[in-house]
């Protein structure tokens, strides 16, 4: 009798265990994917955007990618130019990158540069003179594109962390958020000025401390990470 009960209990435990594992796997497999953002943005005519971002090394879900960047953008859905760091599934840490595009769907370039050291604070700026858009890290240019190639006029800046799978970690944790500061934009009269951005986030676990009045410095983190 004892043996029978033991077998029955063992079978039940196995079943519960299997169900738990299967639910967990299914949860992982079913995680929604898309574009998820967290940080600040502002609609303003501009010739560029800049911000200082702390480098951290977030968890990236299978086949996904995570980034954080400064962007100037136009009205079209793919009118943008950005510079920052990103991490692709399979990398041990993040790398610097810049990327630009237009909505006509005939232009998209993405250049990935060297490793970005965790713990460093770097100023990322993407801004134009009268002929070219420049992508800079700590005031050193790593790339440029003629404005005539881009073909759009900036009407907003976005300074955001970005994930693509609900299981990705928004960079930062509760105890060690990513610090972001010195948010600026370049006016149409070529002056860099401080800007208070408006808060924006897509998912409940994506947190930031930008008040409703806006801010030029803030933190972002993932509330699922202590």
């Amino acid at each position, binding site marked *: 009798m004892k043996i029978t009960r033991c077998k029955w209990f063992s079978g039940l435990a196995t079943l519960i265990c299997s169900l738990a594992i299967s639910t967990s796997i299914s949860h992982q497999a079913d995680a929604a994917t898309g574009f998820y953002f967290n940080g600040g943005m502002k609609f303003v005519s501009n010739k560029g955007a800049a911000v200082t971002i702390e480098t951290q090394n977030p968890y990236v879900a299978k086949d996904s990618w995570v980034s954080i960047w400064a*962007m100037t953008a136009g009205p079209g859905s793919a009118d943008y130019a950005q510079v920052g760091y990103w991490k692709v599934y399979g*990398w041990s840490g993040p790398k610097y990158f810049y990327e630009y595009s237009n909505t006509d769907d005939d232009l998209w370039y993405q250049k990935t*540069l060297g490793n970005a050291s965790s713990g460093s604070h770097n100023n990322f700026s993407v801004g134009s003179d009268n002929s070219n858009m420049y992508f800079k890290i700590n005031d050193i240019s790593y790339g440029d594109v003629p404005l005539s190639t881009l073909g759009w006029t900036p009407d907003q800046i976005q300074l955001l962390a970005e994930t693509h799978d609900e299981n990705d970690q928004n960079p930062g944790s509760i105890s060690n958020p990513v610090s972001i500061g010195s948010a600026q934009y370049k006016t149409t009269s070529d002056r860099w000025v401080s800007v208070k951005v408006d808060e924006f986030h897509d998912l409940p676990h994506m947190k930031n401390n930008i008040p409703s009045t806006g801010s030029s410095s803030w933190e972002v983190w993932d509330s699922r990470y202590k």
Partner: protein
Amino acid sequence: MKKPFGFLASAVIVAAIGMTSVAAAQLNTSSPDPGQGKSAVYAAEVQRLAESRTFVDNGLEVQVLDEAVKVDENTALEAAKHFIGSSRGDTAKKVTMTLARFTDTQVEQGILSDSNLSVQDVPVWIVTFHGVDMPRNGKAGSGKQYVNADVHVIIDANTGEEIEMIAGKHGK
């Protein structure tokens, strides 16, 4: 049965650069003189890249390399597959490779931040994954997560370090 990537990649490389199976067996070694046939193939690939819209648009200059390097083709391919991320390299319609002397003229000081890797006159392997769905970092409110494009991975031909990766398209 699914064939391992190494086999497929070798087959694709061979097909892409038109080498014989004997030459393919020599992929593990990199000699000062890669052989006249191979040199011609590399030279043609270097010319194709130098004239490509992606390299011209992004200030990437390449020249034929005629010196010995320490990293062989297979090692460079593995490094490039790691750089492109996930198993994306497996999905390429075609993979081509060449040795070249590489300069990124748009990097103001000629050195990459943090990693201190030079991008001026560097002997490199350039591994091109053709027709890959690359992840894009978008803009809030944008649509497509992937762009189908050719991806060029630049690997230091003496240290095996990942230098740069450029993906993109210009024109419909």
